């Protein structure tokens, strides 16, 4: 009879381990997908912004080869993104590089594959190599003919290191959870054995052992699951920060364009509709605030209240744990006129899981 209980405990342990690995694996995949999606959408947002700027210049009647601002746009982009190796624009017909952040590349021809991949208007192409990833976006003229291609090369080290960290976190927590389960199964077996000596009635001892083990298991699972999510979120943090800063920079540029063109900062037309649009495209963003120099909110999209704590004694406002806030100053021609604040809930993947 005792050996039968032991077999049950072993079987239960094995089943538990399998379930744990599936569960942790699924969570790892969700966090890994979130990390990739944060990076991809950051790259896409920034490249689309560059593409839009070039296309607007072309709509103004300047040929792609003659846009004087292009180099400025490319260098600004490369300076703001640490993982960028080079950014270039090539002519679709000849494949010749027209502008590049790497001076030596200008005038050279791009690989034929890039020309082929960039032939599809409106679609982003991605080519992954050992050390770098190439992302390209067609540049269309005002009659929607593909005139050139905007290409950026990115280092992949950071992506790989985030993935490796996530894999090791996943293994560590899978082993921890598996160990807890196995220990639970054997505890159950042990307490069943011990309680048989204390409580003579079979009914009582099975209930007590069951409730005790269930409690221990649930507590251990909750603590470990939270710790696992926390570890994954720590790995995600750099991607969240980079993406939020990119969006904050984009919103700031947009507002500065209006302000420098003579629109009064306090009466920008349809600002909130624009902020809502940005938030809809980037689901992880909780709120976007545009404030004046003193911090008074002028425009708001989303709710910021749940991200902040107010100290009742001092009235001081502080950001709660699990939230990230990126701030960019808005300047007119001479000085700062206000701030763009973007808040992200760093636990957005965990909230999706539940």
């Amino acid at each position, binding site marked *: 009879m005792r050996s039968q209980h032991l077999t049950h405990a072993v079987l239960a342990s094995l089943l538990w381990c399998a379930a744990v690995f599936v569960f942790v694996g699924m969570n790892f995949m969700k966090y890994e997908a979130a990390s990739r999606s944060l990076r991809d959408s950051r790259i896409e947002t920034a490249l689309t912004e560059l593409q*839009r700027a070039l296309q607007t210049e072309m709509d103004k*009647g300047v*040929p792609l080869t003659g846009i004087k601002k292009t180099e400025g746009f490319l260098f600004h982009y490369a300076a703001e993104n640490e993982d960028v190796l080079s950014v270039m624009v090539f002519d679709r*017909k000849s494949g010749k590089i027209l502008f590049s952040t790497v001076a030596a590349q200008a005038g050279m021809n791009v690989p034929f594959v890039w020309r082929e991949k960039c032939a599809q208007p409106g679609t982003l192409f991605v080519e992954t190599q050992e050390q770098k990833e190439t992302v390209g976006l067609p540049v269309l003229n005002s*009659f929607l003919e593909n005139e050139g291609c905007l290409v950026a090369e990115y280092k992949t080290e950071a992506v790989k290191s985030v993935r490796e960290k996530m894999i090791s976190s996943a293994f560590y927590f899978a082993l921890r959870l598996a160990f807890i389960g196995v220990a639970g199964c054997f505890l159950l077996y042990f307490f069943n054995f011990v309680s048989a000596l204390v409580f003579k009635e079979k009914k009582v001892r099975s209930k007590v052992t069951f409730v005790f083990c269930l409690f221990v298991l649930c507590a251990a699972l909750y603590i470990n699951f939270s710790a696992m999510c926390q570890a994954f979120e720590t790995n995600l943090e750099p991607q969240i920060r980079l993406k939020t800063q990119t969006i904050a920079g984009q919103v700031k540029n*947009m507002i500065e364009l209006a302000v420098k063109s003579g629109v009064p900062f306090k009466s920008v037309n*349809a600002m909130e*509709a624009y902020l809502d649009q940005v938030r809809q495209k980037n689901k992880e963003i909780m709120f976007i605030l545009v404030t004046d120099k003193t911090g008074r909110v002028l425009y708001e999209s989303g709710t910021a209240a749940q991200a902040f704590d107010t100290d009742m004694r001092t009235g001081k406002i502080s950001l709660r744990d699990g939230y990230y806030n990126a701030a960019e100053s808005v300047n007119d021609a001479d000085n700062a006129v206000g701030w763009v604040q973007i808040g992200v809930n760093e636990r957005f993947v965990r909230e999706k899981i539940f």
Partner: protein
Amino acid sequence: MKGLCVKKFFSVFLFFFLFPFLFAEAASPLKVYMVLWNGCEDACRGFLDYLKSSRLNVEIVQRNLDKKTDQISALIEEVKETSPDLLVTWGTLATLEMLGTENNGPVSKYGAVPALFMVVSQPVESGLVSSLVSQGRNITGVMHLVALSDQLQYARQIIPFKRLGIIYNPTETNAQIAVQQLKHYASLMNFDLLEKPVPLNKKKKPDAKTITGLVSELAEAKTDLIYLGPDAFMNTNRKILIDAATAFSIPVFSASEGAVRHDNALFAFVHRYYTVGQMAGRKAFKMLKDKIQAYDIPIESPQRALLVVNMTAAQKIGIYPPLSLMQNADLINIPEKE
């Protein structure tokens, strides 16, 4: 040694045999005959740049009318004699003079020579072609005006107008067409059209002195926005219209860029001439290189319009375009900071 001689002989033989074929294309470039209204401006440059970038072997002959039509018959004879591979015309007047209207005869006066026009505002309404998609002659082209429906839709994003005013020359065909189109869209887009034809003087000419009075009538009728259409008379006197409208804080939006750039109209949705020329170049490439017939290529305008906003006018009236439109706009006359 003997083998080498045979090889040499065959090489020389092959070279001379293939010589005419190898250089046939280089020897006979395709001929493009261009009739320009006022020299080679932006649209013409766009056209030439496109052909240059496509590396097509073409010989371009440019004829400049210098804003006069007295050379037309000589040019028509020249085209008939030289029989180019493509005839290109610039502007409505030069195009109508060179190609005639479709009602005058479905057959081109140049036989098989295909024609391509650019910078023509209303090819159907002017009788050049019966339809933009299919027509009876071997003609295609590029229009430079943004479709009125698109202009109105964009304008609504800037000013959600209920009453749109227009002051126009009742004797001008283009202006009459614009008013007819506006009436059509007024019922579809649910706005009231307040039309004010400019009264004619004793010589049966529109009287520019009445424009200020007409603007004040529109102001009394609480007009939200005034449209300055493709109307030569009103465009000549646009400063009077815009100054009067600004005095009543009524914004003016224009079909052409000049009113925004030089005379403080608030905004316009336009296609730049360079782009129009490039699009014409693309159509020429299709005809010359791909041998597609002109009547198989639709007459169209570029798909993406450019919003041009006069920021000084915006500041005066206190109406600014929405932020999402500003990023793709050409913001001009930016006021200096006080």
